[in-house]
């Protein structure tokens, strides 16, 4: 299990494993921690070895991957870039999160056919490659008819990972990977930055290594797991981590128990993760004859057309009326939407619109098109309808006031419109959210305190249209950030494969202007695409 304060949501990257038990030389000094701009002498005096490299990207997840992919295609050799990461391969965190939240390799993910982190062009799309690989027209029909006659086509997780591996080999990703946990990034006196890495035990003679670079990119993903406070309290007070689980942590034991013993499960949340968990519970009923009773708790019950402020018909604090041109479908508690934002934020009207908005206005539009939602999928509808008919899938609307152990079970007091009702269940699966505040990430907190970074209208890292972290420039050096930590900026879809590629394109463009890489014009782009197709190095 991972602690919310850890740098990563993957349990294996426990920061303590990077802290050697023996005091060894080359550590950060108090003077360094108190100084916003470091001189070369300051770092050298601390006994920290300095490695010169023009570009480092911190994180080593999908965000770092697509960024170095762009730069490799723009002609940057591997010797000019380093990926600083605790991960062995870029899709490690993503694969972990999707697997525990019930998207194993054979299942389909959420994003669409042209969201290809292994291919900057998005062509051929996943549907085309799947059609060729499997010799079937079905994926092509699907992308043709979506979303009118079919659900949106989405690729299988395994297909995505295999192709990422291919691209990773093609661009020689491993030559750039340096393993370790990044502790801090500080501006360098005279320009550029120092990035302090704590390598795994035994990998270095010193406790820290400093990377001196002109450009830094930060893509550290989710700051941490966020549990609902009442669930967290129950878990710690009763030392019960078995019956109350978060969808983003390993919880196979729950499904194993459910197949053996008829039980009642409380599912909390109304997003895609709740849909996935319900699918698993319902699949297990169908396949293994589990006798699971499902109680689904919605905090907000969507009953028709809606937007991020809620139902069209309800009182909408701050939301005014739903706009005729800005409302989505919903029913049975859910708000329906293919992707985590309306599709055009990744390239069309909404992208162009938000790019022009600042402050309050931007926050308002984010709110209006936001809100928890899930795709309408035929198979999910069928299962839920069956559950409603047969009485083993029930919905409750409200909030949990209190939770107490009751023998082996958990007694919840749920505040509903009809008053407080008791609800006794065997398991609770929390599907309500992943994201903690950015200040819970030590590296990001330090950038806010000492690096000149600030928060945007929705409280995350404030980046410009080119994904430069506003306020952090250092001489001719630039600090960029992309991914979930930058949500709320001039481009909404940041925390997705395609969003990370949009960001990577902006970052590449900025670096091309600064002379770090070549421009990917029509000729270079076409030649590089052929190389991609042939599988030869960029």
């Amino acid at each position, binding site marked *: 299990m991972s602690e919310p304060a850890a740098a990563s949501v993957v349990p294996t990257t426990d920061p303590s494993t990077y802290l050697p038990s023996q005091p060894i030389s080359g550590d950060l000094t108090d003077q360094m921690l108190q100084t916003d701009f470091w001189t070369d002498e300051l770092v050298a005096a601390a006994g920290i070895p300095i490695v010169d490299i023009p570009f480092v990207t911190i994180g080593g997840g999908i965000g770092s991957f697509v960024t170095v992919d762009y730069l490799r295609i723009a002609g940057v050799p591997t010797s000019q870039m380093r990926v600083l990461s605790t991960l062995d391969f870029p899709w490690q965190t993503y694969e972990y999160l999707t697997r525990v939240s019930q998207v194993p390799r054979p299942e389909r993910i959420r994003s669409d056919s042209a969201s290809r982190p292994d291919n900057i062009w*998005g062509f051929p799309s996943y549907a085309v490659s799947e059609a060729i690989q499997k010799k079937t027209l079905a994926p092509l029909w699907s992308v043709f008819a*979506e979303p009118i006659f079919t659900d949106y086509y989405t690729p299988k997780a395994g297909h995505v990972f295999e192709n990422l591996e291919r691209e990773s080999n093609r661009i020689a990703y491993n030559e750039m990977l340096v393993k370790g946990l990044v502790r801090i990034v500080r501006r360098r006196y005279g320009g550029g930055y120092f990035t302090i890495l704590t390598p795994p035990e035994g990998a270095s003679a010193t406790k820290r290594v400093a990377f001196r670079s002109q450009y830094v990119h930060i893509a550290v993903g989710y700051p941490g797991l966020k549990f609902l406070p009442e669930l967290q309290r129950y878990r710690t007070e009763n030392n019960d981590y078995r019956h109350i689980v978060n969808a983003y942590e390993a919880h196979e034991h729950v499904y194993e128990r459910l197949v053996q013993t008829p039980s009642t499960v409380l599912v909390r949340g109304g997003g895609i993760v709740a849909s996935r968990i319900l699918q698993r519970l319902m699949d297990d009923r169908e396949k293994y004859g589990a006798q699971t009773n499902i109680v689904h708790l919605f905090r907000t019950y969507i009953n028709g057309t809606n937007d991020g402020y809620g139902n069209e018909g309800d009182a909408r604090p701050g939301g005014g009326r739903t706009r*005729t041109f800005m409302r989505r479908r919903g029913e049975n508690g859910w708000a329906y939407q293919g992707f985590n934002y309306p*599709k055009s934020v990744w*390239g069309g009207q909404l992208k162009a619109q938000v790019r022009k908005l600042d402050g309050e206005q931007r926050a308002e539009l984010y709110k209006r098109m936001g809100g928890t939602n899930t795709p309408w999928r035929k198979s999910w509808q069928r299962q839920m309808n069956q559950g409603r008919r047969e009485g083993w899938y029930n919905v409750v609307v409200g909030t949990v006031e209190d939770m107490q152990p009751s023998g082996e079970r958990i007694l919840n007091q749920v505040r509903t419109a009809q008053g407080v009702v008791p609800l006794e269940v065997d398991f609770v699966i929390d599907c309500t959210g992943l994201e903690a505040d950015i200040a819970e990430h030590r590296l990001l907190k330090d950038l806010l305190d000492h690096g000149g970074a600030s928060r945007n209208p929705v409280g995350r890292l404030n980046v410009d249209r080119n994904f430069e972290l506003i306020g952090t420039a250092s001489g001719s050096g630039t600090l960029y950030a992309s991914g979930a930590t930058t949500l709320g900026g001039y481009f909404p879809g940041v925390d997705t494969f395609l969003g990370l590629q949009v960001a990577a394109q902006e970052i590449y463009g900025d670096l091309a202007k600064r002379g770090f890489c070549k421009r*990917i014009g029509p000729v270079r782009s076409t030649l590089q695409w052929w190389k991609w197709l042939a599988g030869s190095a960029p």
Partner: protein
Amino acid sequence: MLPTLNGRLQTRIFMLVVFGSLVTLVLTPVLPGDPDHGTTFIILATVLVLGIVWELIYHGIQQFRWEKDWPTMFGLITILNEGALVWLLVDAGVVPGIDEGSVPFWAFFIDFSVIWFVIWVWTNGPMRVPLIRWRFFGGRIV
């Protein structure tokens, strides 16, 4: 596609000028009823001019969609309304430079369908190869 109004218009003009012209040039000599290049290019120009009006209409329709997208299928089936209108105008002799009833239906049908299909396929994939910004900027070329 995720077009903006500006992107729609630019893409429409670019596609018809580049691929429309290429196909028209190559295809005209083999069309039934031997229409000359003058006629087929006037038809192409008609498609372009009317297309700009159609794009305004499509943009309006798109506003009713929460996603503000333009599904792949719409790009193909709009061949029906656009093709029908151009044919009616061509056949009725309303288009300047083309006499009433002078263009054989099958010549028009083949020419129009091939152009449409080539452009539709190109827009839904290969276009992203030379122009990496195009799909992220609503179909704008400049």
